[in-house]
């Protein structure tokens, strides 16, 4: 009775006409949640113990007491020499893992000397054309000790092959090296749009990687199933969660259909979520993700190994939430988002830099981003207790609600025949595009607020120093790849490319011939050419 009265009161007091009480994804938020709302809540079933099924409270028993999350800042610009320097700077300052941003031509399978690459070389990431560049990128970085994440999708198999080749050259045991390739092609069709081949042959490349790594590089995370880009493209939190898990389901399905045992590859699947500004929505999303994935793996795919049930994930704060206006405000946004990711139980974290709506980050701004994580870890105390928000009436009801909404999408995608079919139909793409437009209209009408953009604007700009990539980078890199193409053993190159083509046409695992070609210093562009000949291209359906 009493609680109901409070609830009513709170609602009335706050029912000012124009303020909306919805999350950033436009989900209704209650004014007050009481024990009444959790009356039917079965904590044993819904939460379990940390480190145990269904992992709602985190995938490890002791969470950050045992080990803090990995602080992993995404970095890459200019040539391999430039990025190697940045990598070593970050490691010196306490970063615990590497994360590589490749430039657009590498992401799209073109060499730097390709005409299509003009203006893009080294600009939005590091230019990698061949094993020669990879050797420079990881120079003086012991790959047996440092874990490396590589944001690479269409040509993931090629960069993975180059990484293995560098590790072997360093004398590392490839059974011991660890890291992640993003390798998530489905979200490319959904959101990031950096595909190389049509979905079916792309899925084959991915299952080949699963199979190869399970045997040869067992500590490698063979995929990072990514909601990040889906969210950045404008989806809601629920869509991000649902489409990411639906992508995950599709990868497992393809792996199983290719004849792999689910527990042979599922433990190496990892995830990647966005952390946007709506604090509790994000925390609830991450808790729901773990519970849902555990159920999917155990019940749907009958996985027996608990490692197959765990939704291990990396988080990145939201780039799209940052503003070019009053850019110093971004420091606050990033800190709050990072805090939510930690309370959500992430395994590793990238904090954006304050200047990233304007350019790639400077060394100084990257340092603030890294220090933000260190402040959360060492000063705020939030990492001392496992899943500290569990049991909160609000957090638990919100976790349930997000889960419920996400299942609706997953069932819809099941009905369409799975994610590959759903993409073919344009269903998730349309949902994302509509959500993006809806949010933009809400901003336009002032129903949602972006501080400094549609409220609290100031005249004039805050001048900040930006990183500039000089035109000489492109020139240098083109010369470098051209020189390599002249210098190397052409007979070996031709033979390796021929072998790669034959393997691509066959049903054999493609990884050994990829590694062989990488070692012969075939360039990324040459390898992709061969694969395009066999697999064909994919065109943007351009849904608006």
């Amino acid at each position, binding site marked *: 009775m009493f609680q109901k009265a409070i609830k009513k009161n709170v609602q009335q007091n706050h029912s000012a006409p124009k303020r909306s009480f919805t999350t950033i994804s436009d989900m209704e938020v209650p004014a007050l949640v009481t024990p009444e709302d959790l009356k039917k809540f079965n904590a044993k079933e819904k939460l379990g113990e940390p480190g145990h099924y269904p992992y709602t409270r985190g995938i490890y028993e002791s969470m950050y007491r045992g080990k803090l999350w990995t602080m992993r800042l995404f970095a890459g610009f200019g040539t391999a020499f430039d990025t190697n320097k940045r990598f070593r700077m970050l490691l010196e300052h306490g970063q615990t893992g590497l994360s590589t941003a490749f430039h657009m031509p590498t992401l799209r399978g073109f060499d730097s000397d390709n005409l299509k690459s003009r203006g893009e070389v080294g600009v939005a990431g590091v230019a990698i054309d061949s094993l020669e560049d990879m050797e420079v990128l990881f120079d003086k970085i012991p790959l047996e000790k440092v874990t490396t994440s590589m944001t690479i999708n269409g040509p993931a198999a090629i960069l993975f092959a180059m990484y293995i080749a560098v590790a072997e050259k360093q004398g590392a045991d490839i059974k011991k090296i660890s890291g992640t390739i993003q390798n998530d092609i489905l979200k490319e069709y959904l959101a990031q749009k950096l595909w190389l081949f049509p979905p079916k042959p792309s899925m084959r490349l991915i299952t080949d990687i699963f199979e190869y790594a399970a045997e040869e590089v067992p500590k490698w995370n063979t995929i990072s199933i990514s909601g990040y880009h889906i969210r950045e493209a404008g989806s809601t939190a629920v869509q991000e969660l649902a489409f990411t898990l639906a992508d995950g389901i599709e990868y497992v399905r393809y792996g199983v259909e290719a004849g792999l045992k689910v527990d042979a590859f599922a433990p190496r699947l990892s995830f990647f979520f966005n952390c946007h500004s709506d604090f509790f929505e994000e925390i609830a999303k991450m808790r729901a993700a773990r519970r849902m994935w555990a159920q999917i793996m155990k019940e749907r795919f009958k996985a027996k190994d608990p490692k197959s049930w765990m939704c291990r994930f990396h988080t990145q704060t939201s780039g799209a939430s940052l*503003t070019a206006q009053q850019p110093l405000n971004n420091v606050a946004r990033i800190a709050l988002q990072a805090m939510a990711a930690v309370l959500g139980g992430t395994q590793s974290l990238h904090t954006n830099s304050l200047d990233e709506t304007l350019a790639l980050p400077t060394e100084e701004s990257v340092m603030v981003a890294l220090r933000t994580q260190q402040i959360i870890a060492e000063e705020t105390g939030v990492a001392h207790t496992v899943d500290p928000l569990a049991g909160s009436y609000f957090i638990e009801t919100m976790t349930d609600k997000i889960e419920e909404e996400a299942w609706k999408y997953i069932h819809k995608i099941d009905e369409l025949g799975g994610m590959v079919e759903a993409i073919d139909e344009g269903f998730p793409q349309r949902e994302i595009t509509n959500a993006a437009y809806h949010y933009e209209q809400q901003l336009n009408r002032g129903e949602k607020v972006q501080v400094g953009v549609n409220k609290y604007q100031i005249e004039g700009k805050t001048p900040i120093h930006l990183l500039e990539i000089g035109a000489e980078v492109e020139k240098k890199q083109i010369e470098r790849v051209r020189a390599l193409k002249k210098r190397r053993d052409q007979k070996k190159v031709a033979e390796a490319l021929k072998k790669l083509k034959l393997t691509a046409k066959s049903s054999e695992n493609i990884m050994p011939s990829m590694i062989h070609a990488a070692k012969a210093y075939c360039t990324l562009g040459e390898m992709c050419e061969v694969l395009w000949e066999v697999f064909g291209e994919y065109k943007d359906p351009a849904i608006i």
Partner: protein
Amino acid sequence: MSRPVRVLVAKPGLDGHDRGAKVVARALRDAGFEVIYTGIHQTPESIVQTALDEDVDCVCLSVLSGAHNFLFRKINDLLKEKGVTDMPLVGGGIVPDEDKKKLKKECMLEIFTPGTSLKEIIQFFKKNIKPRSLSH
């Protein structure tokens, strides 16, 4: 009789960040413009060809990869080569102020950067983009 203004929304370059281009395309359409959207991964050559084939009044170029300096200029050069001088270029994307100033001087009618409201963009188009003369 006036016809609706035809706008080409194009994405040159290698990146796939199409959220902005699509939101703007849709907002322009809702505001009564005739909008043609190219999809992503277009070369400067193919964009110019589409602009001519569709006989548009304005070309919008969205670039978020940092390659705006090269791509905007290239498209402007190609249009000039074809003898087109009355088809304004409007840019959008992550373009630092310094670059924006130079590009506006050289070839771009306007460049919209992150945080610009749809209202502002639509107003700009209504005010500045008119149907090209039918005599060309």
